[in-house]
């Protein structure tokens, strides 16, 4: 079925296009907008963006696959990103990752069976002074301990 934006999101379109001198520049914002609604960038989403921008689906798919925050396959309702780059690694990021895997019962890159959570590792999220850290959906959680991680993950599974 063809992808459609909800009427509220549809209203944002005109404002997005007005920011740029051409349509193509709206590619990243539109992919974000569509993914926000659909959860991931499906073929239908790619087609919808291509039509809005007047570019080929190949262009949009090329863009969607270049950036790590567009999901080109179905993913969980929530995303857990554990930073593993040096400053966080110096504060035990590897232990945080292993703990998340154990607690969620999945490996990095996988989604829990109930579809609630996808676990990712992230590269430096600009939170080095408050390492170790993880991002859950839009929120940063900093100065983590394993106990804090447990509380956060339990809250996610329930939501």
């Amino acid at each position, binding site marked *: 079925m063809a992808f459609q934006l909800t009427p509220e999101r549809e209203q944002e379109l005109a404002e997005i296009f007005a920011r740029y001198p051409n349509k193509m*520049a709206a590619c990243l914002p539109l992919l974000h907008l569509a993914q926000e609604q659909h959860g991931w960038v499906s073929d239908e989403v790619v087609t919808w963006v291509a039509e809005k921008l007047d570019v080929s689906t190949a262009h949009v798919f090329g863009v969607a696959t270049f950036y790590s*925050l567009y999901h080109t396959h179905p993913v969980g309702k929530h995303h857990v990103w554990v930073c593993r780059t*040096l400053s966080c690694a110096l504060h*035990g990021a590897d*232990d945080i990752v292993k703990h998340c895997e154990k607690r969620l019962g999945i490996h990095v890159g996988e989604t829990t069976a109930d579809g609630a959570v996808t676990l990712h590792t992230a590269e*430096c999220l600009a939170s080095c002074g408050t390492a*170790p850290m993880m991002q859950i959906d839009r929120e940063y959680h900093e100065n983590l301990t394993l106990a804090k991680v447990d509380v956060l993950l339990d809250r996610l599974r329930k939501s």
Partner: protein
Amino acid sequence: MLQRTDHLTKRYGIPDGFTLTRYLADGGYVQARRALSMTREELVNECKAANLRGRGGAGFPMGVKWSFMAPTVAPGRPHYLVINADEGEPGTFKDRSMMEGDPHATVEGCIIGCRAIGAHVAYIYVRDELHLAKDRLWAAIREAKAKGFLGAKPFGVDYAVEVYVHSGAGAYICGEETSLLNSLEGRRGEPRLKPPFPAQAGAFGMPTTVNNLESIATVPALMRLGGDNFSKISSLHPKEGGSRLYGVSGHVNTPGIFECAVGLTLRELIYDLGGGVKGGELLAVIPGGSSTPILRADELVEAPNESHPLHAWHGMSVLDVPMGVETFRGLGTMLGTCCATVLSDKACPVLAMHNLMRFYRHESCGQCTPCREGSGWLERLLDTIVAGNGTMDDLNRLHEVANSIMGNTICAFGEGTAMPALGFLKKFRREFEEYIRTGGRSSTNRLALAQPAAE
């Protein structure tokens, strides 16, 4: 020389520090208003007098960069100001603090910057993950617009300025300016060949200046103080002026962002501001983001020749050299983003290099073969070494691969991978050899001091 300042960080940590009310109470937007009555040349000269070296990593003089823009705007060739806030260099977290803590300084800087280069539109390119930073910037833009500071006639002056936030989508390479421009245009974030430089053909093929976020957010302060006075804050004046954000993370007791006059030393950053090394003795420090070659704590400055720019520090510890663009180049590393990552002697340098090379392999955009393949080779060779199966040949191969990336790629990512790799190999040659000889038993084989659970 340790000299704390608050020209950029006055509103940090204040509950309503990010609001227009607070910004106006501190004299905000006075400089933007003044700038709109000044000529482009006057603004560029003010910035040149400030000796502000770009805060993004390369340290290019900002006023000079502004002066590269065509003096008159040709018909159908609008100028653009693009702000690089794709902060992603491992160890770097200063721009984020600025966007979250004082977004109006960025918006005011954009108005002044637009005027200085003849642009009417500024795009702030923020990495997608920084949702709070983007929300704060958008809110600041809306507040400024409602007050009539942005739009068709800012402050009633007939010089339209619009500022937009453009969100990235997860790609370290988009911090490279031409890649950022492609990403802004709705393309894959692959770097472009230079020339043409952005000042000739940048965003949408039009003349463009790309400034780092901290650089542009510093502009209101340098205007307030006057370029010359701003420059004199620095102990490296007139080569490098002003105050800037210093970051310190890793094995220190009080990590964070601190604003100081330019010319601070690493020893001051680590011990006075960072509260000293946590859990051991200082092993090494990466001075300004992971692409800047590592410095060992026991290294001394080798500059016996009187003509050497670092001769004044000959024989002294590298930790006592003022942190500047030129001085750190003289040390064989770079100042980079001025955010240091500290390793105590409990951390294994082999694992640290492995961690970073995995990062570069993951983030190589794949456009140029030497970088795409080379970064993978570096990681795989280190996989072997860390697994305890490395040979001395692997060590030589690491050198060979890193040297084959250098100079053979479109953008500086290649050097940004190879230079720190060669840095680790040179500074920790003995540790690498022992690691290989003992299959890793010579090392702590850890990066973290303790499990986070212990806290």
